[in-house]
């Protein structure tokens, strides 16, 4: 397991990681989520000793990374798939890794097969690799030593949809066998599908953490309903009178309220509903909201970052009507 304790990293006056604490458990995939520049990569670099911490500590299985003998056999690391000599073939890069870790050369072929790089592709030089191929190679490199802990920074970056699905299966299976997985992403959808637990980071601080249910339960205020009726105009008026935010969406309306409240309003107004479903709070809304303090394109009022480790407040501030959030995922939209 990975334990991050009160980790702080500052560069001069700028604090990239600010008093961050969390734990990644074996058998679970932990998603590390935050916008660009939130401090995800810095945190992960500190974990593997590439960046010295200003204060605080990270231990993996109770040890500091530098105290782990032959760490590649215990911790698989992918921080930047492009950070390899671009004149080496993919196969050679894996062979160097295998040799450093003292693994048999056959392990290279196993890993190439696992990540779906063909014999011919593996002989090409890295500079001729697409981003997706580099990413597959990086995952192969991380898995070389059959580690029990995986630390992957933006592993899905550049993978095609089939590749992302493959990686999801791979990491879920890995965690199911007892491995500890920490992966970062700035894309919520990626993490939402794979992570058992999520850590949201913005502006170097953790703004929320927990499993998906806990996070959503804490975000009631951001619940939305999608509703269609025989008289949308009347319904919109009725909802607006109750002080709810309503906006047209497709055939119907999007309301910033739970479905039961919309149902009551329709009943009172005598409007026939033809469709009413939860708009899914979107984790996306939640994500944007929690991290908007650091979103480069954020607009409107933003909540201050929570103190570290704090869960969500019972009522999160509602996004403004013109909030640029894209439509949230329809309920049950992904299987």
């Amino acid at each position: 397991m990975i334990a991050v304790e009160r980790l702080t990293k500052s560069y001069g006056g700028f604090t990239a990681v600010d008093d961050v604490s969390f734990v990644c458990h074996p058998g679970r995939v932990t998603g590390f989520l935050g916008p660009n520049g939130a401090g995800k990569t810095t945190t992960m670099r500190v974990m593997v000793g590439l960046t010295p911490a200003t204060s605080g500590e990270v231990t993996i299985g109770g040890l500091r990374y530098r105290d782990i003998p032959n760490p590649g056999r215990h911790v698989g690391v992918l921080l930047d798939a492009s950070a390899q000599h671009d004149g080496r073939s993919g196969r050679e890069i894996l062979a160097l890794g295998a040799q450093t870790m003292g693994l048999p050369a056959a392990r290279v072929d196993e890993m190439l097969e696992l990540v779906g790089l063909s014999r011919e592709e593996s002989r090409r030089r890295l500079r001729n690799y697409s981003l997706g191929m580099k990413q597959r190679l990086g995952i192969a490199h991380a898995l070389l030593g059959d580690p029990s802990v995986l630390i992957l920074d933006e592993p899905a970056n550049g993978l095609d949809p089939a590749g992302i699905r493959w990686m999801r299966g791979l990491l879920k299976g890995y965690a199911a066998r007892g491995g500890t997985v920490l992966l970062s992403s700035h894309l919520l959808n990626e993490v939402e599908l794979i992570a058992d637990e999520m850590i949201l980071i913005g502006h170097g601080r953790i703004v929320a953490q927990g499993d998906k249910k806990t996070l959503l339960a804490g975000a009631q205020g951001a619940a939305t309903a999608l509703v269609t009726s025989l008289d949308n105009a009347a319904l919109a008026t009725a909802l607006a009178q109750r002080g709810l935010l309503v906006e047209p969406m497709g055939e119907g309306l999007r309301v910033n309220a739970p479905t039961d409240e919309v149902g009551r309003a329709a009943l009172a107004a005598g409007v026939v509903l033809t469709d009413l479903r939860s708009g899914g709070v979107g984790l996306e809304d939640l994500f944007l909201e929690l991290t908007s303090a650091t979103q480069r394109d954020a607009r409107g009022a933003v909540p201050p970052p929570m103190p570290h480790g704090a869960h969500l407040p019972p009522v999160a501030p509602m996004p403004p009507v013109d909030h640029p959030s894209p439509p949230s995922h329809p309920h049950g939209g992904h299987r």
Partner: protein
Amino acid sequence: MSTATLDLSGTRPTPLRRLVLVELRKSYDTRAGFWLLFTIALLITLIELVTLIAVNAQDALMDFTAFTGSVFFVCLVLAPLLGIMLVTTEWSQRSAMVTFALEPERLKVLAAKLVTAVLLGLATVVLMFAVATVCTAICEVLQPELTQWAVEWQFLLVGAPLTLTVTMLFGFALACLFLNTPASIVSFLLIWLTSLPVLGVIAGLIPAFEDAVPWLAVQINVLELSDGFPGSASEWGQLLVTLLVWIVVPLGLGAWRILRAEVK
């Protein structure tokens, strides 16, 4: 593997020998690395072959050591490029991230690179003498009465390997200090080839500096090693001060920099 702690029973720290083998492999497994090695080997061979042809064309007297005369100075300049590249390509190609993730003991990686650099340097000396042996043998066949072996064992076994190792360490130290290929190569060549005239000019401007020149003239002090270790105490002193200033200090600063660097 579902426990919260790592099972370390099956792993031991990576031995230095394995890291050296990895570094050796890195020196030739890229096109740039391979061609650099190839070019150095080719130049050494060609220069000695040219000597062989010239000698035979002119019916001149020849011995074994004469073959290595001029090529040795070329080796002293070319071989350190290998040591420099071992260090700087990790930074220019950013592969240091992976190297240090697999071996967080950075000084151990540096030590492995240093050993590799010295081995590569010694390999160029071996090649130089091997080609000289072949050339002398050919010479003896073609013009037996003009050819002598007259092997200078002191130079072969001590002087040449020692001098080349020192210049290799000099280049290596600068590479650690700059972590940048062009800066390291240029400064290596400049200091090696021009430090004496530059020191002379400074001494001309500041007469008090004149006494310091013999203590800082890296090329002279190092080249004297090709005749073996210094004979007098003052020569020893000048050699050690030179090594301290041009190798130990940059290597120490470079190692400190590498240890503290945020590897990106």
